[in-house]
């Protein structure tokens, strides 16, 4: 017997229902993982070797790309604002404009997005491959808690490294901005530095660091969640990596909005 063709309204409702269930599953899964992380945080239980390996992989390997990104971000900020600075002759505000926007917004967001694309995607792919090749079950069979052994070092590492990379990235951005202002706009570097020191406050710098910590945590949790829930072989790993990068990007912008709203 031919299968009955459902009316269009029923198919639309089915589709909406499916999407809703999918999102609920992901949100529930992330919430449960956050709960598991909290349970393992006090007292902290980190595997030294796994933490060290991730520190190297996440921090050292990300350093060059973050430096290049930050240099260009600083330069772009100066070029973008340079047009108006020259128009009004407000050369003393160039450092403030670049520093304020880099410290508070552009630095953490750009580095966060780079971090989620490089580190988060890599993490999801690694955990996803472990999942589909039964390595996660093998850990459980060895009486080793995958959250404690795999997730905790990654969360710790991503928070610490995101923080440090944003600190480094902020200053490299200013260097890029100062160099661009000197060689492209003819604004002396010392005037640029004076402008940063005079007009940009410690609170602006810290504002960006709060975001770095929040973004690091979000990227870690989301990438681990999608990795640990991978199914369907190589295709499934690809799907999880995709979902992880999209999820991390959404989380970065939501957290950015919330922190900006609360700390302004």
């Amino acid at each position, binding site marked *: 017997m031919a299968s009955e063709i459902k009316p269009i309204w029923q198919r639309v409702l089915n589709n909406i229902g499916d999407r809703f269930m999918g999102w609920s599953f992901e949100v529930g899964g992330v919430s449960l993982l956050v709960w598991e992380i909290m349970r393992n945080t006090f007292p902290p239980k980190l595997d030294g*070797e796994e933490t060290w390996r991730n520190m190297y992989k996440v921090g050292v390997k990300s350093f060059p790309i973050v430096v290049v990104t930050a240099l260009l971000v600083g330069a772009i900020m100066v070029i973008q604002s340079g047009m108006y600075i020259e128009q009004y002759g407000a050369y003393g505000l160039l450092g403030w404009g670049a520093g304020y926007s880099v410290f508070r917004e552009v630095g953490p967001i750009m580095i966060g997005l780079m971090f989620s694309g490089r580190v988060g995607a890599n993490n999801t792919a*690694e955990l996803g491959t472990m999942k589909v*090749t*039964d*390595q996660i079950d*093998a850990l*459980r*069979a060895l*009486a080793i808690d995958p959250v404690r052994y795999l997730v905790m070092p990654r969360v710790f590492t991503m928070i610490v490294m995101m923080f440090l990379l944003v600190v480094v990235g902020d200053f490299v951005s200013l260097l890029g901005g100062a160099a661009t202002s000197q060689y492209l706009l003819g604004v002396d570097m010392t005037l640029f530095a004076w402008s940063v020191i005079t007009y940009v406050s410690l609170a602006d710098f810290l504002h960006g660091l709060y975001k770095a910590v929040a973004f690091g945590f979000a990227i870690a949790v989301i990438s681990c969640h999608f990795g640990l829930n991978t199914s369907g072989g190589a295709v499934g790993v690809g799907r999880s990596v995709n979902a992880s990068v999209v999820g991390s990007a959404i989380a970065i912008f939501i957290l950015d909005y919330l922190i900006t709203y609360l700390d302004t």
Partner: protein
Amino acid sequence: MASIEFQGIYKSFGNKHVLRGVDLAVEPGEVFFIIGQSGAGKSVLVKHLIGLIRPDQGRIFLDGVDVTDLSEKELYPVRKRCAMVFQNSTLFDSMSLLDNVALPIRKHKDVNKKEAREQALEKLKLVGMGEYKDRFPSDFGDGMRKKVAIARALTLDPEYVIFDEPTTGIDPISAAMVDKLIRHLADHHGVTSIVISHDLRSIFGIADRIAMLYQGKLLLDGTQDDFKNSDNPIIQQFITGNPEGPMEV
């Protein structure tokens, strides 16, 4: 009293009914083989023992203790006593062979890193992989990885070991070595082994008892002779590897 007991195990994945009421009992120190076609539910059944899969219905007992409803945390002591060698080795790609084997020692034994690595090396030597200790799993084929997985499973000196197709993909000499090791563990250390295998040479070489699963149910549970002498056409077809017969492929 049986060491391991499965009582009326049912398990379905979606609308695929894999196990349809399996009853099995494994005696202490036995080398117990579970055989059957691919997809018969052998791996699914043994994973229930250490809680990697939960049954839809039925109970599982280990030394008379019901382990069916234990939480993940409560299962850890069970998993330390009952090791498993997975079908596809499941070595950790990011670690050297030595670190793979040392991991459970590092996590569960009160020893320093150097001592853990020394103990791990002993286990690697036991399976003939000592000289490759610093190499990575990706450098080897299935057979050699499987030997390392066996070494890793033995690190905590378990009372029970589940071997999921331990000789598949291994050359005949290494397969004979694995068989000898399983027999040795039973005869000299009292280790109870559940072995899932299609390897007739292993099955009729070292099995104390054999159980055959067919269509999610237990078809026969008996000795090597019971199987050889069985007049059940399905069993005979399986043993002889005849593509023609009543067994649905």
